[in-house]
Every structure is written in C-alpha cells, then in structure tokens.
C-alpha cells in the first residue's frame, strides 16, 4: 500500500507506524514543514510475522526538518525490513535518523538507508545512525547505509554498529545482587532509551516499555 503525503509550508506532522505490515510511504515536504516519524516493531504473537517498511522523504523547498526514529524487538522467525530514502533536493534542510534493532532467536532484519544531497542543496545537515544488538547466534542483521552527497557545504554523518549485550556490564550488575534477567532488561531499556524519549506522548512510552518488559520478563 502506497501512502503519499504532502506536508504544506509550515506544517508539522507526526506519524507512528506500530507493527504495521508492508507499508510504503512517500512524503513530500514543502517549505519549513517538519516531520516526526517513528517506526516501531514490538514483540508480536505471530512468530513468523514480517514487516516491510519503506519510507521516502523529499525536501522540495528550503527550511524543512525531518526526524525519524525506530526501535524493533524481534523474536522467533520474525523479520523486519526497513528502507529509508531521504532526498535533500534543496538547501537549508535538516534530517536525522536513528534506528535501533534488537534481534532474538532466529529473527532477521535489515536497514537500508539512502541519503542523497543534490548539488544545489547547500547548507544541509543530515545524520543517520543504526545500532543493533543480537541476543542469539542465529539472529541476523544486515545494514546498508548509502550516502550520496553532491553538495560541498553540508554537515553529514552516518554510523552503524551491530553487537551483543555487554557481558562485562551484565557480570558487574550480577555482582551487585541483580539477576541476569533483570540486568538484561536494564541494558535493553538503556539501549532503547534515546528512541523512547523521542515519542510524542508519555502514555505511548509507557505502553512500549510494558510490551518490552512482558517479553524480557
């Protein structure tokens, strides 16, 4: 399903995609419009669920701001494949992306992030970060950042890491009377914390924490 949206000059839009299967978004931003978008995949009773999410954001005029955040906690044979394309066609825009995945069991996920700054798009700031934790040896993460920068007066960065929960931190917490399960929970909250705090309302933050808690607990 393709969702096409135009954000009119000065408009602010918040979009939250929570466990939404197969969606394709094309969002065009006009002057000074702002977008806050979240992609969230939480533990789900369907062990073989798959989420394919594709988001294209285009800055058509100057002064646009885009913030995209995501968190995913997958288990069993679930899959979550996320593709983002951010196109800075004009100068003076801002975009930041932060996506975090935690994969358990045999789950699989991918993040493909295309970031394009066209030759006339000077004075753009664009950031992209993808951090992932694998909780099992069978889980698989694929990350493909793709930056194409044709303007010279820009600030842009990207980073991607995939690792495991920090064993030395787990042992340190166990030495302080904390069970290994609780220690894992604390580390996962800590990992998701910078995404959770960007959610537009507290109730939603609490609901998501509750869901994560149910899974790990």
């Amino acid at each position, binding site marked *: 399903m393709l969702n096409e949206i135009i954000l009119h000059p000065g408009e602010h839009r918040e979009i939250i995609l929570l466990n939404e299967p197969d969606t394709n978004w094309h969002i065009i931003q006009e002057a000074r419009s702002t977008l806050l978008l979240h992609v969230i995949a939480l533990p789900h009773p369907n062990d073989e669920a798959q989420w394919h999410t594709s988001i294209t954001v285009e800055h058509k005029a100057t002064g646009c701001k885009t913030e995209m955040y995501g968190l995913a906690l997958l288990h069993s044979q679930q899959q979550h494949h996320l593709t983002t394309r951010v196109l800075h066609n004009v100068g003076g825009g801002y975009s930041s992306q932060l996506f975090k995945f935690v994969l358990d069991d045999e789950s699989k996920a991918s993040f493909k992030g295309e970031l394009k700054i066209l030759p006339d798009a000077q004075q753009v700031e664009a950031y992209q970060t993808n951090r992932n934790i694998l909780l099992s040896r069978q889980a698989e993460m694929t990350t493909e950042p793709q930056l194409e920068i044709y303007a010279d007066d820009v600030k842009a960065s990207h980073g991607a890491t995939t690792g495991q929960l*920090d*064993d*030395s*931190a787990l*042992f*340190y*917490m*166990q*030495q*302080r*009377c*904390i*069970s*290994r399960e*609780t220690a894992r929970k*604390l*580390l996962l*909250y*800590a*990992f998701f*914390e*910078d995404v959770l705090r960007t959610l537009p309302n507290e109730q939603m933050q609490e609901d998501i924490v509750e869901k994560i808690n149910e899974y790990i607990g």
Partner: protein
Amino acid sequence: MLEIKNLHATIAGKEILKGLNLTVNEGEVHAIMGPNGAGKSTLSNVLTGHPAYTVTAGEVFFRGKNLLTMSPEERAREGMFLSFQYPVEIPGVSMVNFMRTAVNEKRKHEGKPALSATDFLKLMREKKALVGMDNHLTKRSVNEGFSGGEKKRNEIFQMAMLEPCLSILDETDSGLDIDALRIVAEGVNALKTPHTASIVITHYQRLLDYIVPDFVHVLADGKIVRTGGKELALELEDKGYAFLNEQP
C-alpha cells in the same frame, strides 16, 4: 566466613590457580600480594563467579554454604562484594535505578520488604556522606565519564549501600593518587565491623598503610607461598618478590 581448600581454576584451558588454601574469619582483614600474573585477579573472579573461569578442583565454603554452585548474584546477595579493579561503565542505566534495584534484590533475598522511594533516597544520602561521594555522580549513568578516582569511590559507595559481610578489594589502589587512596581507605575502614571481613588484593604496600591487615599472604604461581603479619608487606616492599625464590 570463607574457607578455600585446594582451589584449582583455569581460564581458556590455562591453569592459573594451582591449589590455593585460605581461611578468612569474621573481623579479619587479609592482604593478598604477589607479582603480576600470580593469579590475584583470578582469585577475585573465581570467588565472585565470573563465567570465563572454570574451577577444576577444590572447594569453597562461604558462610557454611557451597559457594561454587551459586550464581554470581546469589553470592552477592549472600554478602560477597567485589570492588572491581576496572569498574564498568553502563551508559543509559542511572546510578539511582541501578542502586535501587541492587539494594531491593538483596533485601528480597533477606526476606525484607523493598525500600520506599523516600527511605531509599535517605539511605543514599547517608551513605554518600559516609564515603564522601559527590552528589552529581549519583545523578549520572553508572560510572559513565567518571574519572579513575571517582570510579573507585563509587565502588566503595556501592559497598556502603549493600553492607556486605565479605569485601574483596581488587587493586583498589591502582590508578589512585595518594589523596584519593586515603579517602577510599577511610571509607573502607568506616564500614568495618566485628562481623565483616575483607580481602585486600594489591601489588603495592602503600594501601596497607591505610587499611591495616591482620594477615599478609603472598600469592605466586597460583598458590599462597607465604603468610605473615603486616610486617611481611614491608619486607616485600623492601626486597621485592624475587627473594621468595631464594628461600626454602
């Protein structure tokens, strides 16, 4: 309180402890000294249950219970505390949340109810004052961005919060200047009671000027090769560890 008999332990297939014996009673302070690679840190890791080490022979009893079958958290809840040589930074986990979880897990083990938020904060304030811990440090994530001295101070603060019966201080003096060393040692001494005991692992004698041991043991090649009173530490400082090889 602690009885170690003929303890052998390996890491990655290499034997580090080769038949270590040690008994620690209530009220005692034991210093363990020895050259690098003798097995000092291995001993603290094995006692606290670090998963990288395997015990291949021997027995350890802690307060009458078989220590070696307990998980690391059970050992901690029974009252064993390790002041880490390299305290771990845990970004995103606040000191308050960490400490409240730790204290309440211990209380649950002891059959006591969880502390209310008010009582917990009161306890934090009291213990911070006892060990001279700065307020701003407990507002941060665990050890994140702390200086070497602040990390060691935080270890002693956590010790004060958890009130262990056996504290193992693993190279607590490493990386500390003399003022920081004195402050940390004062904290340790303030926490001492007739029912607690400490094992102080150190490479240098200087910490023992501040935390005075009842016994000094020399660990070399995975065994305790010499035991004496506090004067043994001075002898080692004077002659180095080489003299151990020269004597029968």
